[in-house]
């Protein structure tokens, strides 16, 4: 019964490890493995999100090809942004740059481009973003993101302006077949203190992505602040049965099939509204941009380029090789010192590291040096958990216990220290994460997150993986030779006791 259970567990571990290996296998293996062998390129993992009718929802598919590495390890894209003050001469440049840099920071958080770097460079802002292309960077970070509400331009007779061969012409509204050619002007309303202002995204309280209950298509639900609601009420009142279009940075927002997104106003509304018909990825981007806010003045991208690792490509490469060498040496040491258990620990640690890396890739965690440090620390703790178990096993074997009893006792006795050290590490992580989050210290936050993931999996690995491997190995008669379990070099702890001549297996459960 026990044995069957162990085998099921082993099968489960092998499955998880295989899935993790496929997931974490690097997309550019030559960076990490000896170059002489043509290693296969990792394809990562792709889990499509399929609706009941069998169609795949783009945007919602989970796809992870390469590990997200930080600026310090891999580099990314560098954008240089320059404020354009030509239309707002009375704006203070310092204020504009400070504001813009705060908004960029918010966008970075909204889009989850972790571990980015913002820097003032003379009268410009330089932003370095890891793991995204220059084009994505411009779409996500470089846009002014000014949302405007526009109405049709009409003359005194109610005719609508359309563009005909580059010329504006007024035609009766009934003859307009496509709103794509129409001329749109900012919808203006009067504020509470009597000023006439255009309604823009600055009056938004928040925006969120939702699904249209009827069509299942994405929509952006937004809510105005008090002043915005006051303006929106006047505009929708004036434009009943008329179209209202949304413009972002002077360009109309379009529906999934490429037309100007201009719904007809059905009733007077004030505090909330929605934009429907957009493509999922665009809607998703827009919500994030709206929530992060628009730049106070337009910023233009004056330079964009790919940049290498800030720690230096060569330096990172050298460290990868050094780290791998160290891992091999540690495994060798473990096997020499702990014999067969050392080998089992090596196998368990390989499984452990594979799972952790797969989780990092799936979430995804942006790995930086501090993340690697946390990972290495968690590997160290996992090694230590194994060492604790084996030391205890050795002690039990020395006082004459059978192999099975010694193994179970070793686990039992080592468990309290593994539990307490790991729990206190998790408490530390929780506090560091919270502080890092509150104070915007992303370095501290990233460290805490990666360490917590590592420690969680390390506990799983100590309880489940090492234990199952040990149990399976103990059930193989050839593996029960004492010399495989206790080295004669011994440790200093139990000076007087002799080692048993053989290790019987009886007496266990």
């Amino acid at each position, binding site marked *: 019964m026990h044995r069957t259970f162990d085998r099921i567990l082993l099968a489960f571990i092998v499955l998880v490890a295989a899935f993790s290996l496929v997931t974490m296998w690097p997309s550019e293996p030559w960076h990490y493995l000896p170059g002489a062998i043509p290693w296969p390129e990792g394809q990562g993992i792709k889990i499509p999100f399929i609706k009941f009718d069998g169609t795949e929802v783009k945007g919602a598919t989970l796809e992870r090809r390469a590990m997200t590495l930080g600026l310090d390890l891999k580099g990314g894209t560098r954008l240089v942004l320059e404020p354009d003050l030509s239309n707002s001469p009375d704006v203070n440049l310092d204020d504009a740059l400070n504001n813009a840099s705060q908004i960029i920071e918010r966008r970075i958080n909204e889009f989850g481009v972790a571990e980015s770097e913002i820097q003032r460079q003379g009268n410009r802002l330089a932003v370095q973003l890891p793991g995204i292309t220059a084009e994505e960077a411009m779409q996500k970070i470089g846009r002014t993101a000014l949302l405007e509400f526009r109405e049709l331009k009409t003359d005194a007779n109610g005719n609508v302006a359309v563009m005909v061969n580059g010329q504006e012409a007024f035609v009766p509204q009934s003859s307009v077949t496509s709103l794509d050619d129409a001329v749109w002007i900012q919808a203006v309303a009067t504020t509470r203190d009597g000023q006439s202002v255009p309604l823009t995204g600055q009056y938004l309280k928040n925006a969120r992505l939702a699904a249209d209950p009827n069509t299942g298509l994405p929509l952006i639900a937004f809510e105005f602040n008090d002043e915005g609601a006051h303006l929106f009420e006047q505009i929708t009142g004036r434009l009943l049965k008329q179209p209202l279009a949304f413009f972002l940075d002077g360009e109309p927002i379009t529906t999934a099939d490429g037309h100007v997104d201009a719904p007809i106003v059905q009733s007077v509304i004030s505090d909330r509204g929605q934009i429907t018909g957009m493509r999922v990825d665009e809607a998703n981007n827009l919500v994030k941009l709206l929530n992060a806010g628009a730049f106070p003045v337009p910023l233009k991208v004056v330079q964009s380029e790919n940049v290498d690792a800030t720690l230096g490509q060569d330096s990172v490469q050298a460290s990868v090789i050094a780290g791998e060498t160290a891992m091999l040496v540690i495994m060798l040491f473990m096997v020499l010192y702990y014999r067969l258990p050392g080998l089992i620990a090596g196998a368990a640690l390989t499984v452990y590291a594979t799972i952790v890396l797969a989780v990092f890739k799936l979430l995804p965690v942006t790995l930086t040096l501090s993340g690697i*440090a946390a990972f290495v620390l968690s590997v160290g703790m996992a090694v230590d958990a194994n060492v604790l178990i084996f030391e205890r096993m050795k002690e039990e074997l020395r006082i004459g216990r059978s192999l099975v009893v010694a193994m179970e006792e070793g686990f039992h006795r080592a468990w309290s220290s593994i539990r307490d050290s790991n729990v206190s590490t998790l408490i530390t992580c929780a506090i560091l994460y919270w502080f890092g989050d509150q104070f915007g210290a992303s370095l501290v936050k990233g460290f805490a997150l990666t360490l917590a993931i590592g420690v969680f999996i390390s506990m799983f690995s100590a309880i489940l993986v090492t234990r199952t491997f040990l149990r399976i190995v103990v059930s193989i008669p050839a593996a029960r030779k004492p010399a495989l379990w206790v080295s004669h070099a011994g440790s200093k702890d139990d000076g007087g006791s002799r080692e048993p001549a053989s290790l019987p297996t009886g007496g266990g459960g």
Partner: protein
Amino acid sequence: MLDFVQKRNWYYLLSLLVLLPGVISLVIPPGLKPGIEFSSGSMFEVSFQNTVKETDLRAEMSTLGHPEARVQGTGQNRFLIRTSVLEGSAEQTPQGGPQPLGEQQSITRALFTQFGPMLKDDGSLATDSTGQPIPWTVQSSAVSGTVSREIGRKATLAVAAAAVGILLYITWAFRSIPNPLRCGIAATIATMHDVVLVMGAYSIFGKVFNMEVNTMFITGLLTVIGFSVHDTIVVLDRIRENRQRYPDLPLHECVNNSILQTLGRSINTSFTVVLSVTALLLIGGVTIRPFLVVMLVGTITGTYSSIFVASQILVTWEEGDIPRLFRRIIPKRAPTVVEEG
């Protein structure tokens, strides 16, 4: 049998002797030199015609008196170099052009001499009117820091809060033995011992080898704290177990046995960490050295403090060493170091 608790006052003295220079160094400004990530500085971009290795460029910057320079590749033989403020450099020459006077110019000249012809932004060779190659920077400007100086203070606050969390947890987890609060306090003192020691050591390195504090240092310190707490708990756990099993054994014997029983593990664990850090120091990249130095010092002191600080504090407290020390000092009868009772 080895006795680890007999000479506990000597261990405290040793700790003090090791801590003291570091603390003095921390007090003498600059205690810890803030690195270029935290402060404004200069940045310029250069592009070379010939193949130039990042390592060589970094080494050259170091020879030119800028070991802090961050060299980042931005294309074929093209590099963005961030340094501390360069003397007499122009505020900004975004379009490139002839070098501004001052340190910037001499660095560009030196790089030109060392690595050969330089290219303009459009990839053409930078020449003077007669067609002779000249030194050229693609762009150069003054830049702000990338990391707020506040991070040091925030990290300190976070660590302090974490220390309280650990203190409470250990006190709770050790509730099955008498005076669990002592265990919590002992572990916290041991961890603070390691933090101060590492910071002190780094401060001395800063003064001697010109090492600056950067985010890597903070990462290293967080890692050391994690390691130190972990290691201390393993030793304390054994004390807890022995205390429960043999409640009649005097504490100093119990602590001594526990240290002996966990010694093999302690040495092995810290040996494996020291081994990997040394491997990285020897053959790894130069840019992560600050992190590795912190790790190396921190691992050794983290292991040391579990055995020679945390565990010893428990015995000191139990045996009432401190009140006895006061009793001896106040009547002024014993001018020498306290011996064991």
